[in-house]
Structure formats: structure tokens, C-alpha cells
């Protein structure tokens, strides 16, 4: 790999692409060796578009149309084990069917890029967006990055390979977009020249690979005597992610001028109330904050990007002086005291002597629309809770009850 340089404007192609298409184009430029996937709404266009590129001979990649998602992830592991650059895509029930193999991919340290168009889980069957699918997989050992726009999805997919394949990391990554809301939404996307992406990523250098001339065994049995140590290795790899992530972002910024961080801070500096969410609601929250600020409200947004590893210390630094943090999340952890995103935040804040109040709203399950008025409603409620000095552990918003 040669040094990364800023790409001149005239080499950048501007196109109107859906979130799925933006990811497909990114994958096209990342010089994949193998893509194994099974179609499922709303990620369908990712694989559809990529299959077109393959059929037209625009990519030199073996596309494996497997018979199920379980096989898709299995094929990805096999290909990754011999040193290939590998990607797949899925959502909802498809991701659920991969379940067993997700853990294999992470524990076998395969740098597979798994693009997900977040979709609710059955039942009743529903094709629309919420985060139940990938939140469910939060403990699988995958790195998870949630993106807000088509441009960000494109950029993040490219960067993901470089993060995953770094020998300090060697972990698979889920790059998530909101199903339909982003996956089927045409936005302006600046695309890099393929040469620049190839130069940025280089060719994958496997740390170790399956090779008939140097036989090794991958994925053997480890019981009470060694299993725990391998889990420790996995955790250490997760701990290495932020540093590698920052380095990759720095290189990417040199090339494009764009940088996203583990999270985005928006008007948080003097904010008394901070909204904490991610993906497309993160965008809606920013637009809402602009309007609330005009009314004199001291409110900001912390839009999370990296859910795993969770940037605990850094988030505490941003929110510790706020009076309240409002969590908006599209997942209900049934029977739990609150929900995945708020649980992380509350744990992160627990050791502070003076903590902001955490208010948790479950929104948009099964794709129910989350307009700015939802954010405003949550904001107004939070102000009341602050006056009372107490908030419920969580509440649902937007459901008829």
C-alpha cells in the first residue's frame, strides 16, 4: 500500500444510490474474493446489485448463492480461513438463522464484513426496521457499527475491511443500516475511484490460513482446560479496536475529508439534555435539536456509531455534566429492567458520583415511523421527569395503549 492521498474532486463520482446500492458499490470496490449470501428483505438489493456486477464481469469474485443463511456464514468462514476477503449480507430472520455461525466467525477470528439492513424479528412477521436483530447478536463477538446515511454506509463498509483485517483486531464486523428507511432511500453518495479504494485497503494479508502445504487445524475442541483463555483473547482483540479504528479513520479522512468517529457529537457542548441514539433516528434527532435550539432549549445529540465495542469512557466524558440523557432505541428486551442501549449507558454512568438522569424510550418497533415529533415528545417528557427528579426505567412511545 502506498501513502494515502486526498482524492481530487474531478475523480469523485456523485450518484443517487439507496443504502443497499451504496453498500453494493462499496463491496464492488473492495476487491472481494468471495461473497456468500441468501436473499432477504430489506438487504436484497445489496446482493442483487453485487450479483449483477459479478455477472457483468466487473468484479473478480466468487459469488456463492447458498441455500440458507446458516450456510452463507459457514461458507464465509471457510473462504476467510484460506485467506480470502469475504462479505455477506442479511437481516432479521436470516441473521437469526446464522446465529450459531456468528459465534464461530468471531471466535475463529475471521475478518468477515457482514452488512445488515436492520429489520424486526417475527412474529408477527414484519419486514420493517427495528434493531432487534443485531442487538440480539450484540454478544456474538462481532464489532457492530450503525450508520445514518447512504454516504456513511458506503464509507463505513470500505473502512470495515481495513479494521477487521488488521492483525491487532481480526474480528468480523456488522455494518448496519436501517431497513427500508435507509436501505431503500436514494441519497447523494460521493463515490471514490476504485483504484483509490484498492490502494487504501491493499490486499488482505492473512495472519494464518488454511494451506495444504502447511496443514493446520482451525476450530478444534477446547474444553475446561483452554476455552476460557480463547475467550480472553477475543476480549483483548475487542479492546484493540478503538485504536485501529481511529487509525483507519485518519487514513480515510486524508483521502476523503470525511471522518465519523465511534460516535458523533452534535451541539452537546453546553447541552443540559443530550439525546442518545443511533442510525437514522440519530439524523432525525439532530434536525429536531436544531429546531429546539432556536427556541432556546439547551439540547444536543450523541449519535452512537460503534455499539461493539461500546466506547464507555468516551461517552461518559461527553454526557457526565448533562442533567439528563434521553435514549431512543428500537428494541425491547422483554422482561429486562430496561433495554439494550440504555442498559449500556446506565452501566457506563453508574460509577459517577453525580450522574445524569437516564430516560429510556422504546420507539419504532416493526418500522413504525419516528418523526421529529416523537423526539420532541420524549424531550418534553424528560423535562417533566427532571422537575419531578424521577423517571421510569423505560417506557414505550408511539404504541397505542
Amino acid at each position, binding site marked *: 500500500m502506498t501513502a494515502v492521498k486526498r482524492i481530487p474532486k474531478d475523480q469523485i463520482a456523485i450518484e443517487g444510490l439507496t443504502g443497499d446500492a451504496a453498500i453494493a458499490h462499496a463491496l464492488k470496490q473492495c476487491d472481494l474474493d468471495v461473497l456468500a449470501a441468501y436473499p432477504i428483505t430489506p438487504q436484497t438489493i445489496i446482493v442483487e446489485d453485487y450479483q449483477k456486477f459479478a455477472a457483468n464481469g466487473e468484479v473478480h469474485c466468487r459469488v456463492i448463492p447458498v441455500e440458507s443463511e446458516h450456510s452463507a456464514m459457514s461458507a464465509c468462514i471457510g473462504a476467510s480461513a484460506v485467506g480470502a476477503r469475504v462479505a455477506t449480507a442479511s437481516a432479521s430472520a436470516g441473521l437469526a438463522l446464522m446465529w450459531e455461525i456468528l459465534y464461530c466467525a468471531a471466535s475463529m477470528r475471521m475478518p468477515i464484513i457482514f452488512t445488515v439492513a436492520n429489520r424486526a424479528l417475527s412474529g408477527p412477521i414484519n419486514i420493517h426496521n427495528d434493531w432487534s436483530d443485531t442487538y440480539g447478536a450484540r454478544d456474538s463477538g462481532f464489532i457492530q457499527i450503525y450508520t445514518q446515511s447512504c454516504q456513511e454506509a458506503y464509507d463505513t463498509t470500505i473502512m470495515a475491511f481495513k479494521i477487521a483485517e488488521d492483525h491487532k483486531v*481480526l474480528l468480523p464486523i456488522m455494518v448496519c443500516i436501517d431497513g427500508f428507511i435507509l436501505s431503500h432511500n436514494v441519497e447523494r453518495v460521493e463515490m471514490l475511484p476504485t483504484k483509490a479504494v484498492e490502494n487504501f485497503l491493499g490486499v488482505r494479508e492473512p495472519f494464518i490460513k488454511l494451506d495444504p502445504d502447511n496443514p493446520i*487445524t*482451525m476450530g*478444534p475442541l477446547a474444553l475446561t482446560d483452554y476455552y476460557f*483463555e480463547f475467550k480472553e483473547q477475543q476480549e483483548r482483540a475487542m479492546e484493540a479496536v478503538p485504536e485501529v479504528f481511529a487509525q483507519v479513520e485518519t487514513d480515510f479522512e486524508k483521502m476523503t475529508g470525511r471522518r465519523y468517529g465511534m460516535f458523533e457529537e452534535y451541539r452537546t457542548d453546553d447541552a443540559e439534555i443530550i439525546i442518545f441514539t443511533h442510525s437514522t433516528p440519530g439524523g432525525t434527532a439532530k434536525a429536531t435539536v436544531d429546531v429546539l435550539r432556536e427556541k432556546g432549549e439547551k439540547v444536543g445529540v450523541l449519535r452512537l456509531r460503534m455499539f461493539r465495542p461500546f466506547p464507555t469512557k468516551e461517552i461518559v466524558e461527553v454526557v457526565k455534566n448533562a442533567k439528563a440523557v434521553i435514549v431512543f432505541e428500537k428494541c425491547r428486551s422483554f422482561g429486562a429492567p430496561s433495554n439494550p442501549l440504555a442498559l449500556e449507558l446506565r452501566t457506563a454512568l453508574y460509577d459517577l458520583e453525580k450522574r445524569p438522569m437516564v430516560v429510556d424510550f422504546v420507539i419504532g418497533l416493526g418500522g413504525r415511523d419516528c418523526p421529529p415529533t416523537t423526539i420532541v415528545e420524549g424531550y418534553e417528557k424528560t423535562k417533566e421527569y427532571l422537575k419531578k427528579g424521577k423517571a421510569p426505567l423505560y417506557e414505550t412511545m408511539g404504541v397505542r395503549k
Partner: protein
Amino acid sequence: MSEKYNEIPMAGNIIEPGNATKYKTGGWRAQRPIHTDETCLWVKNGTCGLCWIYCPDNSVKLIEKDGKYIYEFDLEYCKGCGICANQCPTDSIRMENE
């Protein structure tokens, strides 16, 4: 078994092929196989070899030397599972308590 997490290969990969030989499973044996040359087809004419095929621990040694067929067990690894005795078509192997 005292290695720390950073002293063992990543992800449990076994990077040294055939290192199972370091693990002597002969100690597991409660019964040992006893072989009779008289009826064994290998010893007779160098055929059969079912015991060799089925032995899960590669402990049956079929040896050809100076035009003769010799039969041996490798008792360092034989776990005494009895599969060879079960497979033998001429009942040339029986299991005896250790």
C-alpha cells in the same frame, strides 16, 4: 496446561500438524486386544486389514517384512475400545482385562 491466553495460538488453531501424538491415550485402556496369528487374514496372506481401517487411534500396525506379514498393536495409543475385535471377520482379536 498452565499457559496464559497470550501463550497459546490464536482461536485455538492447531498450528503443528499431528501433535495428537503427544497425547498418549494408552493410559485410558481397561481392556487390551489380544491377537491370534493362526486365523488372521493379514498374517496369512496380507489381506483384510479391517482392524487397521477401523482403529480410531491408528494403533493397529500391519507390517510387511522380508516377505512376511507381521501384526502388532501400538499400546501407547490403543484405548482398548474393542472396535478391532468387533470388526474382525475371523475372530482373531479378543479383549482381555488389563
